[in-house]
């Protein structure tokens, strides 16, 4: 298995990051293996950590009494699952479930926030990097809202 530092360095969002920042990040992270069907987090629960997926897929969704987990989006290798650790009130807004066996790097969100708070230059750099992923998620959501494949059938 690659080291955490190596895996992080290979991710596009951490491209050109300096080694000391990577070391700090890696200090808040650990490798994880997760079984298919595991609930990574549940709506309303405290949001303490997040995952960078190395292998496998995760469903993000909302639990409904009639349909169970309704998947809003799936995440796969190279994508991050979970942003609520970054914003007050630090509670999950969705559920996340492993659709397949997962290999992830799990980050302690509290640990990363602490390091960003005590070193604003590092904090700004990391926030810019995470924001690119948030921006990509937002654009994807906008595109889906357009419902581009729908040309109402006449029948």
């Amino acid at each position, binding site marked *: 298995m690659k080291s955490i530092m190596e895996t992080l360095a290979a991710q596009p969002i951490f491209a050109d990051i300096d080694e000391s920042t990577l070391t700090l990040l890696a200090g808040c992270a650990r490798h994880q293996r997760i079984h298919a069907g595991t609930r990574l987090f549940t709506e309303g629960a405290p949001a303490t950590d997040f995952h960078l997926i190395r292998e496998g*897929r995760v*469903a993000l*969704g909302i639990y409904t009494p009639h*349909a*169970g987990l*309704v*998947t*809003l*989006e*799936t995440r*796969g*290798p*190279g*994508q991050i699952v979970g942003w609520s650790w970054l914003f007050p009130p630090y509670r999950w807004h969705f559920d996340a479930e492993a*659709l397949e066996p997962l290999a992830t790097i799990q980050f302690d969100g509290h640990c990363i926030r602490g390091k960003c708070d005590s070193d604003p230059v590092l904090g700004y750099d990391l926030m810019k990097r995470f924001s690119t992923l948030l921006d990509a998620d937002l*654009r*994807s959501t906008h*595109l*889906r809202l*357009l*419902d*581009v*494949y*729908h*040309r*109402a*059938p*006449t*029948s």
Partner: protein
Amino acid sequence: MTPTVARVVDRVVEGPGTVTLVIELSDALTAPAPGQFNMLWAYGVGEVPISLCAVPPLTNVILHTIHDVGAVSHALCELRPGDQLGVRGPFGIGWDLTPARGQDVVVMAGGIGLAPLRPVVEAILADREAYGQVAVLLGARTPNDLLFPAETAAWSLSLQVETTVDRSAPGWTGDVGVVTTLLGRIRHNLTDAVAFVCGPEVMMRFGARALLDRGVSAEGIQVSMERNMQCAVTMCGHCQFGELFVCSDGPVFPWARVESMLGVREL
């Protein structure tokens, strides 16, 4: 060019409002190529361009997959085996597979956009050794709208096939999200890859930009444009797109040739 009378010999319901017609012509088409289209005439209603969704080499049986969006497409979708229709074609310049030979390939299809791309995938499969790594990325509105599930499952035996839907449905355990996110699933380097993209225009714009971001060159990306058509032979101007006629200069164009015009609100 006057339409020849053709007959529907089979009709397959692909999903909500989408039908594949198997059509028998009196004579075989002259050398149809992937990405070309026919003008299909629903008698008493009108004529519309519809891509060939299979390119039979020497038979007079052709396949068209049609999404019901308006008067003519509706009338075509309503045809049953034994019914007649008019067929003119094939028209236009289709996908150019030559630059893809020896290279990695990405096929990105959204919704009904898979119909014109199906012959591309079949051509690659028929000569698999001639191409590098091939990824087929499929997007649809819902799981019910996914086209040709049996064929795409068979493709996945020798190609990387990734599928996503915009909206999930009970029982769906596949991906949910826009088709461009599937690019992240391709592990190989895309710098010299050739990409074939077809779907709604907005999807093609976002798809082409995402491919450029992944290092594919603008010349390496081909897109199939949709414009209203009437004559299909550069006479009426209905399909004019800037200096281009989609019916005869296209419908398939290199992205580099249409990119600047797609951003323009009025042409």
